[in-house]
């Protein structure tokens, strides 16, 4: 098979990645700048027998996705800020009911209607804490068209393995940008589907032993009859008010991420070995940061780039370590300062942390980042 090279839009690459990952259900609602994901899925899913549906609002969009996931689908939705805000309650439902699904947020200028056709990265903390109650979050963040493809595949794998919603935090810059990429061959990228239980239905507990991370869990209609509810519940899925069962469930949910941090830590590094000024950036802003680091290096400044591709859970140890070694860290992001709060939280060594922010709808420029690098180098 010859290598297939394609010029793709980020949103298209995301949809292609979903199909590659085995997605067989999409439920969503039109919203700039993510609508192309839905349009591509509407085109491609039926070809492989998958189902696409455009619902009456984003709540219904994620609602159908969670319903399909309960029935065993690999399901996804795609939206942007306003829709992402509407999906918050059911994002929490997906965590509590332990339903795998992928939610793509092509971030745009906010808040409110904001700048529908302009990019931003200002939903990052919402991605972590937007829904109510203690809960976990897994979110990835692509910086290229190829990563829109590969990270969507990874989101599906993580959703299936961790049995929870996984977020792909894109933005309008990446979503609408076109770039060349080589389409992976079938089998080239790992795809994961959770195993189905083999034990007798009478012994099956939908939230019992062996159904957690990487475990086997059943789909509605597969010969195992069980109860799923958003109420706090016991291992059988029956509602409970008991403190011990509540703690069991809350600890089970927390352990999913807390016990698998190494696996959920993915950070790209460039020029970091001898870096004195580290630029922490992600998503679209990291493209500018990369350029700024290279230009700084050309001017003899020992700058390095630290780019998380998994942004939630936050890579605490990696950032703490980088801060320990660096003279200063510059955080470049397209908001008024969000992931910088996490960086400062991970700062054990009082290392200087300088913001390089842009929040007017335009892409931050290398020059702007260079200015802050210069300030950091003083």
């Amino acid at each position, binding site marked *: 098979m010859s290598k297939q090279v394609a010029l793709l839009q980020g949103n298209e690459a995301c949809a292609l990645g979903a199909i590659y990952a085995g997605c067989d*259900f999409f439920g969503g609602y039109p919203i700039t700048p993510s609508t192309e994901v839905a349009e591509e899925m509407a085109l491609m899913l039926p070809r492989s027998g998958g189902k696409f549906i455009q619902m009456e609002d984003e709540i219904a969009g994620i609602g159908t996705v969670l319903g399909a996931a309960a029935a065993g689908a690999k399901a996804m939705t795609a939206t942007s800020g306003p829709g992402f805000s509407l999906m918050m309650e059911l994002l929490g439902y997906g965590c509590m009911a332990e339903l795998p699904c992928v939610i793509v947020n092509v971030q745009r200028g906010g808040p409110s209607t904001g700048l529908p056709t302009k990019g931003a990265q200002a939903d990052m903390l919402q991605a972590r804490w937007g829904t109510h109650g203690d809960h976990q979050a897994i979110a990835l963040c692509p910086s290229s068209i190829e990563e829109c493809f590969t990270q969507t595949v990874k989101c599906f794998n993580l959703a299936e393995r961790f049995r929870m919603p996984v977020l792909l935090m894109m933005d309008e810059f990446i979503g609408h940008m076109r770039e060349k990429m080589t389409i992976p061959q079938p089998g080239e990228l790992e795809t994961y589907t959770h195993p189905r239980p083999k034990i007798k239905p009478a012994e099956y507990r939908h939230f019992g032993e062996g159904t957690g991370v990487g475990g086997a869990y059943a789909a509605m209609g597969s010969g195992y009859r069980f109860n799923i509810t958003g109420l706090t519940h016991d291992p059988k899925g029956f509602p409970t008010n008991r403190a011990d069962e509540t703690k069991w469930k809350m600890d089970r949910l927390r352990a999913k991420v807390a016990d698998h941090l190494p696996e959920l830590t993915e950070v790209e590094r460039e020029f970091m070995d001898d870096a004195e000024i580290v630029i922490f950036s992600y998503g679209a802003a990291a493209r500018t940061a990369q350029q700024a680091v290279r230009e700084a290096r050309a001017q003899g400044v020992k700058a390095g780039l630290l780019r998380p591709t998994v942004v939630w859970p936050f890579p605490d140890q990696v950032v703490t370590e980088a801060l320990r070694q660096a003279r200063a860290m510059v955080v470049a992001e397209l908001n008024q300062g969000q992931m910088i709060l996490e960086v400062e939280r991970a700062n054990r060594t009082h290392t200087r942390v300088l913001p390089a922010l842009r929040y007017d709808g335009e892409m931050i420029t290398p020059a702007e980042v260079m200015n802050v690098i210069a300030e950091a180098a003083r």
Partner: protein
Amino acid sequence: MKIHPAYEMLRPDKNFPNVWCPGCGHGIVQGAIIRAVQKLGLDRDEMAMVSGIGCSSRMPVYCDFNSLHTAHGRAIAFATGVKLHNPKLHVIVITGDGDALAIGGNHFIHAARRNVEMTVVLMNNMIYGMTGGQYSPTTPIGKRASTAPYGTAERDFDPCSLAKAAGAVFAARGTVYNAAELEKLITQALAKKGFALVEAVSPCPTLYGRLNREGNAVKMMQWQKENTVNVKAAEKLPPEKVRGKIVTGVFHDAETPGYTEIYDRVIAKARGA
């Protein structure tokens, strides 16, 4: 000697009695649903009972089906996803007047418009019971509720007309007093290919009854017995004879292809292209 036929459809390891108040009609609707499922000989592994939030929606956990207790107002949206992904499943949505028509109203009318194959059993007690007696979209104007101490100032919905206008293929209403008729209507709805609504008028003695001084379970059921008119009889009666009464029976029964059937044609077209 024979044991209650419905027991075989109850979840074996769930504690009973159910959570509903003494005399609440919801348990009667559950009985009617179970008997309808048994009459049609439906396989429990292919039953998907999806509910929202509220007194109505505590039913699925008690049934030995695939049960999915979702979020307030969202049962029909979840059910759309369940049905579309696995059309083999018989999807029953269990919802209440507040759950389906207030917060869930948007999903109710759109699933009816799309004619997604599901039976929606809307247990109408004309109040929000779970949260303590607030008025709902079906509370008759002037009736009292914890949030309408002077009587409501709002007219109420007729869920059957709403469903019919939105595109449902079947809309019927029954009362828990006439549980046999209710079972028949649910059986008809389950056999339909499309969005089939059965509104079950189910008294709430604890809140609606007390707040409106309409007495206990027996008195409220007695009122149902004396104030129900079948739709065919109602057509022949002058309006003032029907006003304030519960009109029961089948209001709409049509044949229109269901959503998953139509979407299969989309798949065929996509594969043919």
